[in-house]
């Protein structure tokens, strides 16, 4: 009945988002303020247990156990206890974790017990990403996952018209082991099988000479990507792996093409808490397509990105930079695109370059102000996309406004084009 009254999926998502985070449910801000005003904050934590079992003896991941033990002797901070309950629920894949305080052995001391409730069902279905773009249409993903200890199996369906030159639709499957020998090493292997749809602009550009540059359209793409992730330090993770992709060309009779590459990523994240909160996030990514792995494409693709965010009171400012370079002959899915939901917002990607590019530089500057549970923001994007041996084609700009509440985002973007104003509207989550 509820679903039948709604005419579209984005409406359901936006309604759900506003219902669960809007004033009707008081909002996380009120719940946090209520925790901060808790009268038991003046007491000291004497012990911590999980369903009555002392945390020192409870079977828990080492990181979680250390954080729980660190609570003993500290002030009874109900916000921190609530956050810990949420973390336990997430990391142990539980249905619920309820905090329970009781008197300690000494006056002014408190015992904290986290009562856990296990899930009734094995599978968890979620929508990790959803986007409606007034020019590109829908992009979304639905996935089902199940957990067994540190192992997670995920099966999902994707239709994405936002990240690449082409729209790809299909299934993804992934296995992850969050603990290989120790908590600091993770292993994952992903499988994907996509059907590709090319825009008329891309097909026309290929017919007009794109094919001569070695590019080839494909109908399907199938890939396997195994990899290890190492937690080198608290703020640094390193990943090493490979990606084996096979593409079936659009041209009938043409043989399958392979794009096999070694992959390496380094991710750095650092935050400074205080009156002024600062967050720095950096990522370097390398993909090395090599014939020694049986690849038909030989190429090197490098990307580097930085994000700096500063928050002071209700004000928020951030700067995102992304740069990339491809040398050699790379397949279409490796090429860079601008004019997505996060780059040069408002621009038509096919007007910038219907075939994508091998060089990219992009910067996004935003300023936000918190209103209640949400943040209203203005942004300025600028970027250039080009190919080697050709000029940059000039730097393009766009401006826009947005409203963000939790993971839900509404955006109106205006490409800066002389002589006309054509706004683009985007709504969704986690984009």
């Amino acid at each position: 009945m509820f679903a039948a009254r709604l005419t579209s999926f984005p409406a359901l998502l936006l309604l759900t988002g506003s219902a669960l985070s809007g004033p009707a449910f008081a909002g996380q801000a009120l719940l946090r303020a209520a925790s901060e005003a808790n009268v038991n904050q003046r007491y000291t934590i004497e012990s911590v247990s999980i369903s009555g079992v002392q945390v020192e003896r409870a079977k828990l991941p080492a990181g979680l156990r250390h954080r729980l033990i660190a609570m003993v002797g500290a002030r009874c901070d109900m916000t921190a206890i609530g956050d810990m309950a949420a973390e336990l629920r997430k990391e142990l894949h539980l249905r619920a974790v309820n905090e329970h305080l009781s008197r300690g052995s000494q006056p002014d001391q408190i015992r904290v017990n986290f009562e856990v409730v296990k899930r009734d069902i094995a599978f968890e279905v979620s929508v990790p990403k959803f986007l409606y773009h007034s020019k590109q249409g829908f992009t979304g993903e639905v996935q089902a996952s199940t957990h067994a200890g540190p192992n997670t199996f995920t099966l999902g369906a994707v239709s994405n018209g936002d990240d690449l030159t082409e729209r790809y639709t299909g299934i993804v499957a992934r296995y992850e082991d969050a603990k290989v020998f120790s908590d600091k090493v993770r292993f994952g292997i992903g499988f994907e099988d996509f059907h590709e749809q090319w825009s008329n602009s891309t097909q026309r550009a290929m017919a007009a000479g794109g094919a001569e540059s070695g590019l080839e359209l494909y109908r399907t793409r199938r890939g396997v990507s195994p990899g290890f992730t190492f937690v080198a330090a608290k703020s640094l993770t390193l990943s090493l792996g490979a990606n084996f992709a096979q593409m079936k060309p659009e041209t009938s009779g043409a043989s399958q093409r392979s794009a096999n590459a070694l992959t390496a990523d380094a991710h750095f994240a650092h935050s400074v808490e205080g009156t002024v909160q600062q967050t720095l996030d950096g990522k370097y990514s390398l993909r090395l397509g090599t014939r020694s792995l049986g690849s038909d494409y030989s190429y090197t693709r490098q990307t580097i990105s930085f994000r700096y965010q500063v928050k002071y009171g209700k004000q928020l400012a951030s700067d995102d930079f992304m740069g990339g370079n491809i040398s050699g002959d790379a397949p279409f899915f490796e090429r860079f695109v601008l004019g997505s939901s996060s780059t040069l917002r408002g621009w038509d990607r096919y007007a910038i370059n219907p075939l994508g590019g091998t060089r990219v530089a992009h910067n996004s500057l935003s300023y936000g102000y918190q209103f209640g549970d949400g943040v209203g923001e203005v942004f300025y994007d600028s970027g250039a996309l080009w190919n080697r041996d050709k000029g940059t084609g000039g730097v393009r700009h766009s401006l826009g406004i947005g409203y963000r509440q939790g993971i839900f985002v509404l955006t109106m973007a205006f490409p800066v084009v002389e002589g006309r104003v054509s706004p683009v509207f985007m709504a969704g989550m986690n984009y």
Partner: protein
Amino acid sequence: MAALGAGAAGCALLVTARAVTIAPKLLVHLDGDYIHISAPRLGFLNGKALERLKDGVSIAFIGQLTITSQPNAVVADARSAARFALSYDIWDEHFSVTRFGDRPGSQRSISHLSAQAAETWCLDNLAVEQALMHPDKPFYVQLDLRADDPRDQIGVIGEPGINITRLIEIFSRPVKGNQQRWLLNAGPFTVAELKKARYG
């Protein structure tokens, strides 16, 4: 037949008596320049909310007092809304209440209260200025009080996006289990009548 009639009358009496016992009444009075309310038998600190409070967890309540010229009118003549955080002292075994105001510095707190005193303090902090009302114009009063369970939000929206499984669990619950709500109506009153009652 007479026995049957007596039985039916007895049942009706029992039902009426039960209704009288549990139905809370909204009382309205003047105190200084404000119209105040009280609801002696409301008892909103009970059930699940009380259970969570006695676990040491904070519970948030949102209260709204609405004054209208017609019963169940959509447009309010005057309104007072407040957000309250209640907690229960594990050692002292008394309640503490914080009222969050709309302006910085307008937050007020009180502690060492019994359950009934905590309820009274919350309702007493939902007052409407009598100057907003015409002295002889009848008005109706509505109290809307809701308790929020923070756990209902956790797990639906998070790192993996929207968790459909959790959402189905929440929508599958009975409405009352999801959010406790109390709605009381009273009226008509006039400011002149309330003044008369106040000064005898």
